[in-house]
């Protein structure tokens, strides 16, 4: 499915979702530290975590993969671990079933990563900013209070 994303992000979102374009969202974070912590709102606060999602570092990607997963552990920069908030090595999650791979991995349109591959470049297509690495295009969004990047179709196609 080819999507001409870039003319207008909201329209792109509507079209994408209407056509079944899957943006892989998670239902809830396992542990809300950082900026989204300290909230008394919502079911998470009352009920706590659901599912075995990986805990994200404040800035780093989800390099970890839990024991339930079948994929090899691989960070968003290939085999490197994601960085922590001060540029150091990120801690691994407690057993989530998500993993993030670099552009050499099996990324699919709709995948969401919290850190771009190191070799990514910023490009602007029809006024919309994308990041491209290894031929894979990423579009930035806010997911909750965090910036995230969703793999999209090549906007030039």
């Amino acid at each position, binding site marked *: 499915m080819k999507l001409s994303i870039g003319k207008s992000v909201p329209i792109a979102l509507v079209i994408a979702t209407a056509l*079944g374009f899957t943006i*892989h969202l998670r239902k809830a974070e396992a542990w809300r530290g950082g900026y989204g912590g300290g909230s008394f709102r919502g079911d998470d606060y*009352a009920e706590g975590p659901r599912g075995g999602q990986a805990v994200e570092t*404040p800035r780093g990607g989800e390099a970890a993969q839990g024991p339930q997963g079948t994929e090899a552990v691989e960070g968003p920069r290939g085999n490197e671990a994601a960085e922590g908030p001060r540029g150091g090595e990120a801690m691994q999650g407690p057993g989530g079933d*998500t993993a993030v791979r670099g552009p050499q991995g099996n990324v*699919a349109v709709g995948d969401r990563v919290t850190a771009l591959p190191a070799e990514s470049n910023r490009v602007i297509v029809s006024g919309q900013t994308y990041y491209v690495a290894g031929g894979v295009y990423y579009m930035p969004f806010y997911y909750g209070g965090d910036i995230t990047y969703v793999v999209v179709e090549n906007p030039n196609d």
Partner: protein
Amino acid sequence: MNPNWIFFVPWVLWLSVATASAAQVQPAATPEPEKIAHQMCDYLKSLKQFSYQAEVDYDQPDPDGRSVQYGFDMETYVRRPDRLRVDAEGDGIDKQFFFNGKTITLYDKKAKMYAAMDVPPDIEGALEKAHDDFDLRVALTDLASPILCDHLSKGRQGSRDLGISKVGGIATQHLVLDHKEIRLQIWIEVGARPLPRKVVITDKNLPGAPQWTAYLNHWNLVSKLNETLFTFVAPPGAQKIQFLPVKNPASPDRDDAPAKKGGHE
């Protein structure tokens, strides 16, 4: 009269007086945690505007149960009924949150990216929409909600008052509010200004029981908060992006969502 009764009368009188005296010197009953929490909620709700700063530390868990700790500083400004701003800067965080009565804007200063959403024209309505539609939560903004205590009591399974404790030299009442997965502790200033001085949220079930801790200080209840404080002006070069909606019709978390096409998340 039986002589034996004459013998007992003084003792009966003495016991009556002693019992009454004992009742008078007994300390007052321990205040109920809910009552203290409501005093805080009502007081915050009564304030037309306020600001405070907070130092936040939070644990980032490791699979083996050990945690590392990160932190950031916050400044929060509230003007009822429809203005709110939160600045946060620290480990991996450099963000500004604006609510101007019409829109919520979130700006990441480091990434130079911002997004905005239309929201209801009141603080609670705005925060609820941000949470429900976009899973956006910002630390301690619920303190500005006029229904703060409703949020605090939702799902609560128990509460305790652990008594007086000093936070930054200020006498506070230490409350424990237990939920199924979360334990919330609040230290509320004793006296005429029942302000929250410390908040600790603990996930009771995760390995290592990670905590999110905030020390709230520099409360200012009198300074006038100007409109410019709540108005976001995009800096030159800042990039506008969108919030991803939680209720994305194609989200795999939905029961009626189409099958996942692939990928890892």
